[in-house]
């Protein structure tokens, strides 16, 4: 893959999307039998599986917190998820993503209800194409709901990038690799509204005004994803109900 000459031609992006358009999203709930909650998501070419276990007793004992629940989040990329084989195991990047994602979820999970226990969130990236951490957060969020874990709301995540001086929603690989800036968000959504930002990272450069625009653009995209997340969770109940009708 080499740097494209122009990212935006006739107002359209390399893959034909408009700047404020998301990639196609597919969400499936309860895909793993052994997990307490699970989710499979496709955001464009990203393919991610999330599994949630718990709350369960925390071992090793020293990680237990006598007053609240401990959240563990593991972001992992499969060796075959990228063009060049990724060396398996945690590296600097995946440890960092795990940490920031965990902190985002800690803000919405009602930790004080389950002292001494742990919730394990595992997300495996099967295929990566920019914005895999946002796909992982979206999947983990659905899996947590599916596991019946008490939460204040739902997290929805989306990234905004800047290419050719234009802000674009949900960047794909070319825009992420050769763009001027990249800014992933995770929003805490409650009562159908965005309440706060639970995760925000950035690399590259943006002006103050651009950041404000980026937030608005991300919010719009997040609400679209939120509706898809809701739909996916609700679907399992509607389908079963119709079979019996």
């Amino acid at each position, binding site marked *: 893959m080499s740097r494209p000459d122009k990212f935006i031609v006739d107002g359209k992006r390399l893959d034909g999307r408009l700047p404020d358009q998301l990639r196609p999203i597919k969400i499936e709930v309860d895909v793993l039998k052994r997990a307490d909650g699970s989710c499979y998501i496709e955001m464009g070419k990203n393919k991610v599986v999330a599994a949630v276990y718990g709350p369960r007793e925390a071992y090793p004992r020293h990680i237990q917190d006598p007053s609240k629940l401990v959240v563990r989040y593991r972001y992992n990329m499969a060796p075959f998820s990228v063009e060049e084989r990724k060396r398996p195991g945690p590296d600097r990047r995946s440890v960092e993503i795990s940490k920031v994602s965990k902190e985002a979820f800690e803000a919405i999970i009602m930790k004080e209800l389950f002292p001494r226990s742990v919730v394990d969130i595992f997300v495996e990236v099967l295929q990566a194409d920019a914005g895999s951490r946002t796909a992982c957060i979206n999947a983990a969020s659905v899996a947590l709901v599916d596991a019946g*874990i008490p939460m*204040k709301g739902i997290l929805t995540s989306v990234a905004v990038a800047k290419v050719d001086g234009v802000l674009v929603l949900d960047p794909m690989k070319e825009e992420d690799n050769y763009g001027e800036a990249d800014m992933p968000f995770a929003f805490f959504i409650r009562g159908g509204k965005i309440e706060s930002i639970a995760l925000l990272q950035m690399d590259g450069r943006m002006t103050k005004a651009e950041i404000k625009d980026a937030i608005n653009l991300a919010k719009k995209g997040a609400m679209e994803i939120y509706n898809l997340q809701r739909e996916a969770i609700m679907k399992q109940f509607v389908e079963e109900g119709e079979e019996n009708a």
Partner: protein
Amino acid sequence: MRKIVLPGDLLSTNPKLAGHGTYVEGDKVYSRIIGIYEQTDNFIRVIPLKGKYNPSVGDTIIGIVREVVSNGWNVDINSPYQAFLPVSETPEAKPGKKLNEIFDIGDAIIAKVMSIDPRMRVTITMKDKICRAIRFGRIVAINPARVPRVIGKKGSMIKLIKSELDVQIVVGQNGLIWLNGDRRKVAIAEEVVYLIEEEAHTEGLTDRVGEFIRRRKNVQTG
């Protein structure tokens, strides 16, 4: 169709109504779990559709002995926390009788939750007429969130299964269910329990279950 709500869904603006499965922040009542929305005059609650068993005092539970210690047993109760059964709460205990002769690792027991301390250390008791060691019959495990449907309104579903199939049935709040009786009838009862688990969120379940039992009985006899 009953309404299914997700965490963070706004339920009401009257904090006095907040019941189980909800939380209050800034005068607003939100759902904290995925579940079925239920409203009465005095409160709003969300009946969970998923999730682990969270022990509460007075629950009848079925547990598996995991460890024998000097003053009692550690019992797995299918929840994030292990329960402790002290010797003093076991009527079968007599001086000179070894603890592992009463219950050994792997034994199943029906017990009641006696107390839970703020650090979620659960103590259970066998001092109740329903409590006993399980040495025969069958234990079926279901999602603990579906237990209320297996019991039914005021025990209607259990009564139906008992009267139609003539089997003994004890439903543990932790999602383990003990069935005992004629082998073929227990097999039907097991299917019924799984049916209820599968369709817990639908309406008119009791009627369908009754019909299902009669159909299965006819297949076996006819």
